[in-house]
Structure formats: C-alpha cells, structure tokens
C-alpha cells in the first residue's frame, strides 16, 4: 500500500471501518515492538510459531522484553531445581513497591506524626489494613525467598565459573533485602520498631576502629539516639536509596543470568563445562507464550496467597508509641536478625556483632572465585553440602539463642508480672486477652479461685489459673530465686463509664505475694493495668 498523507486519505480509500482496523493493528504492532494483532492472537491461541517468527521481536527490538531471553531451556522452566525462587523474590519485590506506594501516600516520617499516621492508615484509609498487612507479610516472605534462593544457588553450584559475578550481585541483593526490611521496621515508630532498631544500630557503633564505628553510628542514626533525623534517614533509605540499589543490581543480576544462560540442573553438563547458552532447538521453550504465562501465573498465586493470608490470618503488629525513655522487657530483633542477637550473647560486641557477620558476608562474596571444584554434582561436593547444612543448623541454634528465653531472664516476680500484664504485645497469659464483659469486678485469690467463676467467666478463670501456674513454675527447687508459697491477689474494678452509663474502662490490680528464699521473709510486688472495652491489641 502506498503511504498516505493523512488519515482522511485513508478514509477515502478504505472507508472508516477499515481505516480504524488498520490503525489499531499498527498501534498493537508498535506497542509490542513487532507483533500485530494476528501474531498476538496466535500466541494466545497456542498456535505453533510461524516462520519468520514475530514472537522474538519484542525481545530483539523492544526495551522491556529485551531483559528476558526469547527462549529458555526446558529444564529450567520446571519447579525443580530452581523452585522459581528468583522469580518469587522479584514478584514479592514488585508487590512491596505497589503496596509501599499506597502506604507512602498516608505516611510522614516524623516522630510527631508517624505513629498517628499508622493508626490513620488502619482506621481512616479504605483497605489500609490490608495494604499494610500485605506489605509486612511480603517483606518477611521476601527475606525467606531471597535466602532460600541463595541457598539453592549454593547447593546446585550455580555460582561456579562463569557465574561468579552473578552470585556477587546476588549476595548484594540479599544484603539490600535485609537492610530494606530493617529500615522499614522502624517506620511505624512504635515500641517494637524503635527498640529493635536501636539494638541493631548499636552494633554499628561497635565497628572497629573506634572512630569509624562512632562515625558510622552517627551517620546511620543522624545523632546519638534515633530521633527525627534517624527516622528521616531510615525512611529515605527505605523508599529511595535501597529500592534504587535493588533495581539497579537486579538488572545487572538478571542480565548476567541471561547472558550466561540459566544454569542447568547439576549433572546436565560435564564438570567444568557450561552448555546453558547452547540450547538445542528441541529443548527450547519460547518466552511468549509459555514462560510468560507461567510467570504471570506465579504472580497471581503469590498475590492470592498474600491477599488471603492478610485478609483472614495475619495482621501486622502495632504496639504503643515509641518511648525513648522506656525499654520494654524482652526486646528482640526481627526474626531474621535473631541469629545476630544470639551471637551477641556469646561475648564481645565488636567480635560477634561486627567482625563475624562481615567476615561471613565477605566469605560469600569470595567463595565463587576461590572454589576450585569444577563439579556441580552433590556427590562430588560432600564437603560443601555438609558445610552448608551445618551453617544452617548453627544459624537456627543462634536464632533460638537470640530469643528472650535464653539468658535474659529477669527476677521471677518481674517475669510473672510481665506475662500477666504486658505493656505492649499481649501474650497467652495476659489478663487483657479476657473479653471485656468477662472481667467481672471483684477480688480474686489465685490460690483459692471460686469454682463458680469457672462457669461465670471461663476465660477469666483460665487466665487467673494460668497466673497461679506461672507462679508455681517458679517454685522449682532447682531455681536460685523462687516464689515459694506464692499467690496473687487480683482486683478488677470498674473505672470509667460511657455516655450510656456502661463501664468502658476497668482497672486490674495485682499483688504478688511470696516468701523469700530464706523461707521466712514475706515479699510482695504490686502492679496495675487498665483495660478499655474498645481497645485493639496485638496478640502474639
């Protein structure tokens, strides 16, 4: 067809309907960088690729699809051996960006308003709770999936020559992911956030030499303590610098993967050879439509899992506003840093908090370049596999050591008081997990609970019984400090009423009484807590 000067000329030649059809076809061809409507239709219908194949054009001529290869080796399109973990990590990152953008609109990184903004998102923004829960959940899943991806890459020896640099970018991405999770952890500005991050930031101070450590700590926190400056820096890291880093290195990482080809399952190549790039035609799976639809499906599965879990099963915690003057008992790091907290309990902060983790990071980076074993098969890499499983075991044990159950117990009366009346997240023994209406005003002796209470207020009875069980736990003769002959007097009182005259606030007082280790001196501890009818708590 001869070139037309104007649409009008086309209309005169072909009529309005056909002109629109032609223009539509051209538009589709421009958008897909070379596939017209018939080609797209052929892909969707599952037709075999025609010759010449327009389906490679988006890859060769388009910007976006240039990232993906136009075909994959069939062995790497299955679940085993990659478990699609790299794809899962990328999908989760994308979901984090989307939910993060949503949350960004409603959040200001200032200690004066950040906490209030969190409640505003939960109480005044439609779907705010869902978005926040998905954001939190996907972050945790992303840490798991990136770590598993690295572990898989190690076990299948995919980091070996020529993919050493790919592994290096991957280790950096793991570091960025952990750092992203850590910086995001502070943003709600509640007690959990503030103190968990303070622990981590204090490790930076311990970096040797002393001047470097102190300067780094000041740089990270924006001051001697985490305040307005620190929150802003963490926020900028979390929403700008680190995502930018991830995107840049993700492109490098994936480009390198495609450049060398996805590594084949171990055993496909002879040791030392790498046949990933030379894919025989009968083993090729085209990106369009097969791999593309597979990736879309994974995106759908992950989104569906996150949405359903966040809607019904999981809610992100929100404690009281950050109070720099008040450290809660049993402060722990986020679970993926528990192993570091465990290491810190072993000894010197500088050695276990800075030097060892840095050494581990460097070891991972250096490993591909010094690994001399050309084989990727497990049976030829017994030492590597053993070392790997041993390390994972050590990390698990260190993580247990990082929890508050290990080596940071306070005096028994403090522990019992804490379990019954936690100021922040409620535990299983907490009195405030009892439904408000069941908190019947009165005085109760946990050593002599009335049987009638079991029917009247079963939850309250259970919690008071649980309190006595806690006290009895600390009567174990093996313990140095005990609560012998211990019991608690719990008083519940109506405290305030609402406009309709119904009680909406109750005060719960507890006096713990026991005999000291000398067997003679009576001792006591008193505390109180208030429970509001409408209050929403985070329950562990």
């Amino acid at each position, binding site marked *: 067809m001869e070139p037309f000067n104007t649409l009008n000329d086309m209309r005169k030649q072909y009529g309005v309907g056909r002109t629109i059809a032609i223009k539509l076809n051209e538009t589709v061809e421009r958008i897909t960088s070379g596939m017209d409507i018939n080609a797209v239709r052929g892909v969707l219908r599952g037709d075999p690729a025609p010759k010449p194949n327009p389906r490679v054009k988006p890859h060769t001529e388009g910007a976006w699809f240039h990232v993906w290869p136009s075909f994959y080796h069939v062995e790497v399109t299955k679940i085993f051996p990659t478990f699609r973990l790299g794809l899962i990590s990328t999908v989760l990152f994308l979901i984090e960006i989307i939910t993060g953008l949503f949350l960004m609109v409603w959040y200001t990184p200032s200690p004066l308003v950040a906490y209030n903004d969190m409640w505003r998102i*939960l109480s005044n923004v439609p779907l705010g709770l869902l978005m926040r829960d998905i954001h939190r959940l996907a972050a945790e899943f992303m840490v798991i999936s990136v770590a598993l991806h690295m572990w898989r890459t190690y076990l299948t020896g995919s980091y070996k020559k020529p993919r050493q640099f790919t592994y290096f970018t991957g280790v950096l991405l793991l570091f960025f992911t952990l750092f992203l999770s850590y910086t995001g952890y502070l943003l709600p500005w509640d007690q959990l956030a503030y103190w968990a991050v303070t622990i981590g930031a204090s490790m930076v101070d311990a970096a040797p030499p002393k001047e470097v450590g102190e300067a780094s700590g000041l740089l990270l926190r924006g001051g001697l303590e985490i305040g307005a400056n620190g929150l802003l820096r963490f926020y900028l890291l979390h929403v700008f610098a680190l995502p930018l880093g991830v995107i840049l290195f993700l492109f490098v990482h994936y480009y390198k993967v495609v450049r060398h080809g996805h590594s084949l399952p171990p055993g496909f190549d002879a040791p030392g050879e790498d046949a990933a790039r030379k894919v025989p035609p009968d083993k090729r799976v085209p990106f369009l439509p097969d791999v593309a639809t597979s990736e879309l499906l994974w995106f759908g599965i992950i989104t569906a899992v996150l949405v359903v879990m966040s809607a019904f099963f999981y809610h992100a915690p929100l404690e009281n506003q950050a109070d720099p003057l008040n450290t809660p008992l049993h402060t722990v790091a986020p679970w993926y840093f528990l192993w570091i907290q465990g290491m810190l309990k072993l000894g010197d902060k500088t050695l276990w908090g800075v030097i060892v983790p840095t050494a581990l990071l460097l070891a991972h980076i250096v490993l591909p370049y010094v690994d001399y074993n050309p084989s990727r098969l497990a049976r030829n890499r017994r030492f590597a596999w053993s070392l790997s499983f041993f390390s994972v075991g050590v990390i698990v044990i260190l993580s247990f050591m990082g929890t508050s159950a290990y080596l940071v117990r306070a005096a028994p009366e403090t522990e019992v008081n804490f379990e019954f009346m936690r100021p922040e997240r409620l535990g299983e023994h907490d009195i405030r997990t009892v439904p408000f209406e069941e908190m019947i005003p009165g005085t109760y002796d946990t050593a002599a609970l009335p049987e009638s209470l079991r029917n009247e207020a079963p939850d309250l009875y259970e919690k008071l019984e649980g309190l006595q069980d806690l006290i009895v736990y600390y009567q174990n003769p093996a313990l140095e400090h005990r609560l012998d002959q211990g019991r608690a007097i719990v008083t519940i009182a109506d405290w305030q009423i609402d406009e309709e005259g119904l009680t909406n606030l109750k005060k719960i007082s507890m006096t713990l009484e026991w005999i000291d280790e000398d067997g003679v001196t009576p001792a006591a501890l008193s505390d109180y807590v*208030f429970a509001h009818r409408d*209050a929403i708590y985070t329950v562990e």
Partner: protein
Amino acid sequence: MTTRIFIGGLLFVAIFITVGYVLVNEGLLLVQEQDESGRMQAFAAGQDGRSIENGADMFTQYCAACHGDDGEGVPGKGPQLNPYLFTTRYPELKAANYPNSLRNFVKIAIAGGRPDYTAYWATKGETYAAPMQTWGDQFGGPLRGDQIESLTDYIMGWEAEAGQPVEIVEFTAIGNDVDQELPAGDAARGKQLWDKMTLYASAKTAPCSACHSLEPGQTLVGPSLASIGTRGAETVSGQDAYTYIRHAIQLPSEHIVSGFETADGRSLMPEGLGNDMSAQDLADLIEFLLTQQ
C-alpha cells in the same frame, strides 16, 4: 496452557472476592458509618481505647498524687477534677465567655501547668501547696504531645460520669467543732483509714498520707508525723498529744508549724478536713497517730 488460563482465572476471581469481602466490611457503607459497625470504625475506637488506657496509666503515675486516684482531688494538694471540672468549673468559665473548648482547656492546663494558681482558688477559700507543674515538652516539661493527648482523653472520659446523679451519703460531719466529745478511738481502723484500705463515713478516702509521711525526717508537703504521739504533747503548752493532734486536724491555722504557712499567714494544711469525717473517723485517726511514738 488451558490449565494455566483456568487456574489464573480462578486466582483472579479468588483475589477479587477476598478484596471485595474486605471492602464490604471496611466501614465505607453509610449504614456502617452511622452505627459504627465497620472495621475502620472499630480501629478508630480501638485507637481511642488504647489512648485512654495509656492516659489512665499516666494519670495514676503522675497526677493521682495531687488529684486523687479517681480525680476526686486531694485537699491541700490538687483540686477535684471528677466531676467538679464538668459540673462547675467549665460551666463557670463558659458563663464568663471563655472561648475555648473543654478539651482544650484541659490540654492547656496539663501542657502549660498553672503558674498562677492562687488567684482563682484563693477566692474559693482553698489553698494548694504548690503550683501545677508544666507537663508539655513544648514548654519544657517531661511529656510528649501524644502523652498529653492520652491524658486529656482519659480525663474527658469522666464527663459521662458527671452527668450521673451523685450518690448522697448520709453522715454527720464533725467539722471544726473541737469541743464535741469524741467516742473511743480504734487505732487499727485508724491505720486502715491512713492506708486508704477503708473509707470515711462520707465514703471518701483519708487524704493525710498525700502530705504527711510517717518516716522520720521525710517531708512530703507537710511535716513528718513520726513520733507525733510523743512530740504532740510538747508543742503547744496546755495541750496533750491527743488535743494537739485533734486541733491540728480540725483547726489547722490555730497553730502553724514554722515553714509551713502560706503567703497570707494561713497554714498550708487545708481547712475543712473535718467536713469529710465523722466523729468516729476522727477518733480512730487520732488513736492511730498516738501510736506513732
């Protein structure tokens, strides 16, 4: 391919149904806004509830020493909030064209404190030992803005109670009648009154321990009452310990311990303490104090 499209379609529907279910329960519908049955309304109430809990905790920690555990006031230390603030104080202010809201009035009082505390209360005949301190950190106090908000939320929670009819307790006050014969006193009950384990006949708590310590040398607001059982006989000539203590409670400005008087020559110890106690209450308290040898 067909399986993928099928599963993909199923997931799409599942996501839409789940998000739809969440949206329906969010609280966007008019009926949910009106009867507060949506999730968002529950979270808004939840935030208020937590704020009031924290406010109650802080009030007990910082404010109850002067204003009483339930805002009932401590004579000589802090004025009554519950329900006086709502029934009398704020209506008086409003009648005098005070332009701000009750909530803001409370917030200003907490955040800024009351440096000029004598002007208003002196006209009411009440004295207070010290001015209310500044609490807000924007004015140099120890509490953050959100903590002031929580305290205000809690105090405003008493407004509902203020509308309730007040229980009138029938009893005969001993007042400042120092000549009326008192019954025999029970020191054990006096101790219970002192420790606030039991109440006066007027159903109020004895405010003595807010200002007086029983430890020697410890001055809270008023002088220590350690060994008052012996010292009381030696202070005013002609008065034995029993009479001295009785006069001190009922007529505090009759004899003022040096260092504990106001600018206009009255005792820091407030007048009218006898209006809240019956003759038996007074007798029991005196008997208990006499045991402090």
